[in-house]
């Protein structure tokens, strides 16, 4: 066991930067949202009963604390719309993540096995669409998928179909849009994991009688697990809360929590409920993430 080394002042300052960043731009806003989520909805501007301020003095704080309520959270569970959209968001994000994994893995493998000098070029090409606006890329999918879009027109011209396929404004279109938009988040960690693998490991496996398929299953895949998990999390988490893609490519039936949140905030002006939904989403996503992180740490401890 190596003793814990004391950090120098410089190292502490350097470490403080990301923590301060997270505190200022994640924790503080999150606390504000949490605060709104336990207040009561009113028709006012802002549309919630103000909560305690520290300038109020102890008795006033106590009085206002009495007025706090978990009504918004109850509303989340009593209104099936929220539960359904959480489930549907998780399902759409999960399916999209799985499809992206299936698309990205061979892609990453091919790049990792390409001649070394070509790899940066291929990675650059894979990330190139990111140089244009996210919004424009999603709009472009409308042009492809709509009834008089490129794909339908091409298929009709070729005589494959006689009437346009309904692709635009379906859950499928949302999934396609999410897979397309988030693919690099899946691709890059998997590529990094595969590129790191020592090629002599594969040779050793082949030398010991493993066929290419066995080498992949016993060696390449398990050794790239970290990249697969990282890529899946990087994609799944933002995909669950995705708002733009379902709004542009989905129909009104495609329930995703991001859209519900947007409606609650901006159309219904029900800030407390929207805040509660946002807090619930964070909890929903944090719990599996923390569990995974703990399992990983435990495994690493075990390895020592």
């Amino acid at each position, binding site marked *: 066991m190596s003793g814990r080394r004391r950090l120098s002042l410089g190292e502490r300052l350097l470490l403080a930067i990301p923590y301060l960043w997270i505190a200022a731009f994640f924790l503080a806003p999150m606390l504000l949202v949490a605060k709104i989520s336990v207040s009561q909805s009113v028709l006012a501007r802002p549309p919630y009963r103000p909560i305690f301020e520290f300038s109020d003095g102890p008795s006033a704080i106590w009085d206002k604390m009495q007025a706090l309520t978990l009504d918004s959270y109850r509303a989340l569970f009593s209104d099936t719309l929220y539960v359904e959209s959480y489930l549907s968001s998780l399902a759409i994000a999960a399916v999209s993540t799985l499809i992206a994994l299936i698309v990205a893995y061979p892609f990453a493998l091919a790049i990792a096995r390409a001649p070394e000098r070509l790899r940066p070029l291929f990675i650059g090409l894979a990330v190139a669409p990111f140089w244009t606006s996210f919004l424009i890329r999603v709009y472009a999918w409308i042009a492809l998928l709509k009834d008089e879009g490129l794909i339908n027109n091409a298929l009709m011209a070729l005589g494959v179909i006689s009437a346009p396929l309904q692709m635009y404004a379906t859950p499928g279109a949302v999934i396609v849009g999410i897979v397309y938009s988030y693919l690099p988040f899946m691709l890059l960690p998997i590529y990094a994991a595969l590129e790191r693998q*020592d090629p*002599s*490991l594969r*040779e*050793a*496996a*082949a*030398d*010991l*009688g*493993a*066929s*290419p398929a*066995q080498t992949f299953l*016993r*060696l390449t895949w*398990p*050794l790239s697990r970290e990249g697969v998990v990282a890529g899946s999390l990087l994609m799944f988490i933002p995909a669950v809360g995705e708002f733009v893609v379902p709004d542009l490519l989905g129909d009104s039936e495609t329930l995703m929590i991001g859209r519900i949140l947007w409606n609650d905030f901006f159309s219904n002006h029900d800030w407390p409920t929207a805040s509660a939904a946002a807090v619930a989403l964070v909890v929903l996503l944090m719990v599996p993430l923390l569990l995974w992180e703990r399992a990983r740490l435990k495994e690493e401890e075990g*390895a020592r």
Partner: protein
Amino acid sequence: MNSPLLSIENVSKKFGAVVALENVSLHVGAGEFFALLGPSGCGKTTLMRCIAGFESPDSGTIALNGVDLSGVPPFRRPVNMMFQSYALFPHFDVFENIAFGLRRKGETKDAIDARVNELLAMIQLSNYGRRRIEELSGGQKQRVALARALAPRPKMLLLDEPLGALDRKLREETQFQLKEIQRLTQTSFVIVTHDQDEALALADRIAVMRAGRVEQVAGPMEIYDRPATRFVAGFVGETNFIEGRLERNLARNPGAALITEFGRIPCDPGDIAEGAQATLSVRPERIGVAREGEGIVGIVENFVFRGETTLLRVRVAENVVLRAAAGHGERHAIGEAVRLSFPSNAGALHAEEPLG
């Protein structure tokens, strides 16, 4: 050696414009410990990778037990390799690393357990089966890599610089272990090394390679005492290169001598013609050093104590300094005059022009 286990016939291989192997022919017998020795870039590793199946020769054949291996992928070759980096699988423990090849052969669980435990005992790591690779020291990793390659009972084991990553002391100990394991398993070992000491210490026969060609194939003693080319003489061990003109004189004994600017050195002429320019390669320890008597006169310029011997640098002519090893206990001082004597079989004579 009866019919060879491995026959390499006229194998050539180019990488782009770089010639890695040029018309290489070699034979390795069953149970033989064979070394491919040469400086980096001489093609020894390429040759080994051709045997393992990771590279395919541009021309020529490699056959094992008379069966041509061309087109046979590495995982179907009854040859295993121990990698220079060891290439141990980091996500498996020691046991599973060694069992990997046996599992691919579909052996029963009992047979695998027995074989792995036998190998763990052989490499003296009996209680290490459940250790993770990253917990092992360099020497332990080296032994696990050896056991893993031996586990499927290959007809031939290829070892790529097997001792290269070990420190000096461990290396010597491991040389003995390696030799012992080779003797016990009766497997043909083909070792690739750039370290002449390692090749001399381990191998039954050595192929010295240079620039894609085999310069000499012979036992360690012959390589050392009778290097076939000037390159082999210079690469394997320490040597003196003495330039001169050959004089064949059958009336005297010995029958030939090299005439140099500092004197006449008796030698075995081989097939070199009378009067030809030649280079004699003589190991320092083959030169006799005495204070008086016959021999070539020189002045001790410097000396290095080496334990068993003391290496002297002796100036015998204005531009010629020879290295000679004096026996233990003999003391020489700088500036002292000594006499150097050359037994007629002391060196090997090469007709080729000096390098560079």
